[in-house]
């Protein structure tokens, strides 16, 4: 599904040049659950931003679903992103002014899905994370764990092929953290590819494979489980 080759990302300011990704190579297959680990500043987040098409690489190749996307412009990336990728963030990033329902609905609005259809999909997604009873609440009225469940619902509502999770449990206590990880695992079992950046050894064990990064490239890869194709 994803193949990156010799990917480089260099940040330049007037005085310093920072190499965030240094000829990074990686491949992720469909239905895979990959955890990316590494110390702060090793390039995990940069990688995730490029995979999420929020940022473009300085050089190298990035093939997504067979298409070379590293040279795509903003609009094309945006179209590809909204159709295929869901995001889960460490700090949830729900919009304060929108209700739970409206937050989850957001990706559907931007994918031009009709209101009636949207309602069905949002309700299904909220059922999936057991947040249906809170559909009319605002984020500030929810606990951290609840907010992250809403964020997960938002990430999956559009049935994306890929979910990118950036330390999804970083702001949660362990009980809520486990719940979110179980949610992600079950999504993966239903066929969604997941790439997750994490600092937590515990969380990484939910993945099929752990990629350890240092100084902008892969240093080790550990395969934890066989990839079993889940029934669609």
């Amino acid at each position, binding site marked *: 599904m994803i193949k990156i080759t010799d990917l480089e990302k260099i940040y330049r300011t007037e005085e310093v040049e920072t190499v965030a990704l240094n000829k990074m190579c990686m491949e992720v297959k469909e239905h895979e659950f990959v955890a990316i680990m590494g110390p702060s500043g090793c390039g995990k*987040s940069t990688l995730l931003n490029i995979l999420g098409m*929020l940022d473009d690489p300085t050089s190298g190749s990035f093939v997504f679903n067979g298409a070379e996307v590293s040279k795509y412009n903003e609009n094309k990336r945006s179209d590809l992103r909204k159709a295929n990728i869901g995001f889960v963030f460490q*700090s949830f990033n729900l919009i*304060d*002014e*929108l209700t739970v329902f409206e937050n989850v609905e*957001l990706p559907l*609005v*931007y994918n031009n899905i009709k209101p009636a259809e949207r309602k069905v999909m949002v309700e299904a997604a909220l059922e999936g994370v057991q947040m249906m009873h809170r559909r009319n609440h605002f984020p500030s009225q929810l606990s951290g764990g609840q907010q992250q469940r809403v964020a997960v619902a938002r990430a999956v509502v559009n049935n994306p092929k890929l979910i990118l999770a950036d330390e999804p449990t970083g702001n949660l206590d362990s009980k809520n953290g486990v719940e979110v990880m179980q949610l992600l695992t079950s999504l993966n079992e239903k066929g969604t590819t997941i790439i997750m950046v994490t600092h937590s050894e515990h969380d990484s064990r939910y993945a099929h494979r752990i990629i350890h990064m240092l100084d902008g490239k892969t240093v080790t890869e550990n395969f934890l489980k066989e990839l079993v194709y889940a029934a669609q």
Partner: protein
Amino acid sequence: MNIKQSFRIIFRNKTYSILNILGLTVGITSAALIFLWVEYKMSFNRAIPNVENIYMIGQNQRYGDEINTFFVASSPMSRTLNESFPEIKCNTRSGGEGSQTFILEKENKSFTEYGRYMDATTFDMIGMKFIRGDARTAFNPAFPIVISEKMSEKIFGKDDPVGKTLRVEDRLYEVTGIFEDLPGNTSFQFEWLIPFRILENDCIERGWISVDHWGSNWHSCYVEVQSSTDIQAINQKLKGLISEKTDGKNDTELFIYPITKMSLYWEFKDGKATGGGYIRTVRLFFIIGLVIVFIACINFMNLSTARSQKRALEVGVRKTFGAKRTKLVHLFLNESGIMTVLSLVLAVGLIYFCLPSFNQLVSLKLSLDFTNPVHVCGLLGVALICTFLAGAYPAFYLSSFSPMNTLKKQKISTGSAAWVRKGLVIFQFAVAFILICTTTVIYQQIQYAQKRDMGIKKENLVTFGVTPGFINNYDAIQNELRGTGFAESAALSSQTLLQIWSNGGSYKWAGKNLNTNPLISIVQASPNLIHAAGLNLVSGSDFLPQDSMGSMRIIINQTLADMMGEEGRIGGKIGQSDDPTQHHEIKGIVEDFVFNDAYRGKSDPVIFFPTYSSANFLFVRLKPDVNQIEALAKIKSVLQQFSPDKSFEPTFMDDRFNRMFSGDRLEGKLAALFAGLAIFISCLGLFGLSAFSAEQRTKEIGIRKVLGASIKDILVLLGKGYMVLIIVALAIGIPVAWYIAGNYLRDYSYKISLSWALFTGVALLVVLIAILTVSFQSLKAAVNNPVKSIKTE
């Protein structure tokens, strides 16, 4: 859906929304009031159906090197237009404008109403509608009068007045028609009309005018041209008319001028309309209206971009989940649109609330009319402009954020927006400063002229309007007045002396430079006028009773004496005749006094003639320590003994004088009002900005306090940035205000000089207001418990 969300965003950010909506509401209301006033001024005479074809006769008279333009006509004018100008459909003469007291004989009631003498052609020309009587025959009887619906109701109630008579002095007028009340805001404001020929005959009988003299202008003349006539051709034909009729003796040039332009474009120079006049003031206020809306929009822009940090995350999330930039621009424009609409609704309410007071201020009856497409489109237009002006920049700015940065909660760099924000704050305060300075200068200038020594002793001086019948008894009246014990002195005059509307040229004297021909103002005076009016005699003496018996003695003012050189002395001679033996002899010279324009430096030349048969005003100087109410009552009763029909309303000279400034004072008040509003709206913006920056820096303030900063240190820290902006605004504002104020004063020769004290004073005031505004928020932040503020994140 989007709208609902936008509403929610507006309601959840109360401070921000209230500041914006309040600013916009006040801004739109101010602008709407100004625009209503401008509309009124611009629509002068537009209510007349056929206005495009109606013109007024104007004259360019040459006096030496100068050409003076007057809208007057002489007796042969109308006749000549009828005879030799087929392209002019009709004309009407107009004169004798003023209040008359009408007596309803049977009921012995008197009514004083305003009106004038005009020709029957007027009815059709200005579209008067007759409710009773027939316009075609109304002026046929010997002494007819047509009256307005309002006047008819007042005098006759519900009765049909046609055929009834109204008496003025010893003449009976037959009511021959009632016309529908006339629209306001036109050149034609009257409750009654009497045929012009009656006025003309009276004047001829009294020997005041000559029917054939082209140079004796004593009335005005309106013409209606045939539709689609070439106006330039008419003007070309009119130009040499008087010269032709007088065998070149009189070089006055005639022209016609559209009556739609009479109130706004009356400024003439060298015989040509300059395109200026009151329109300059109207334009100025129009611009002030726009600027105030813009200042309110600036608040909107600034508060939006200042809050960008707060909205950045939302933009990031929306973009991550697929929102394109155009969608976000829509979202933000939606918000500004909703805010504008809310403000507009509030503004309409506020306009209705303020209109009565505003109308009182401008002495008009302005109203907001939702059936008037101009008003509806105007309001919607303002709303649309606000939405885009206020919303567009924030929309494009906020939607430009990159999701990657905002989601990481990195501080987004606000470089460009911060600069724009600073620039706009500078603009707001510079404008507010300029408005306040200019207003203060206008105010000081009016005060300065009002305190001026006019050369006339205005105190205790009362004037009454008089009629020819009254003047016949003048000797007896004088005795009676003296007998009351209240009057110190009394005299008759053709002019109020604060204003002199009669003048003439072609005066000659020994040693005169023949290339000059000054226009001399003329006053007809009874004995004792100089004394009664309190004018100062430089030399010679006041008129005595024997002077009025056809003597050739006159009194002149100092300006004319100076102009006459050697001959400008007691015993010197001056006259219009070529024969020096027919000239008048100077028996007195008075100090210059100010008339017609209180701002003029130098007086015009004046001659007082010792005839008073055509006097219009009785001057009575009250003794200084008498009870004025008692004195006026007594004097009125004396006067009424001689003219029982007249009500004799007294006018104090002080009031006449103050009325000379009513226009300026109105403009001054309007400017002050809107300058105040401009600074108020600017402060709302500053208040909002300082609130957000204090909020954003809560943590920083906490850390500083933990490290030992005092409240004062924090106030300085937060206030410093804004003070720099205010000072830059002042640095820009001072020269601009100086220039504008200087330009304003340029039109006056009697004027204040611009002082640094004024500008410094206003600058300090603006700084003080700004400090108060900013400190309020900063103080809140500064006194916060640091432990709390550090933990906020």
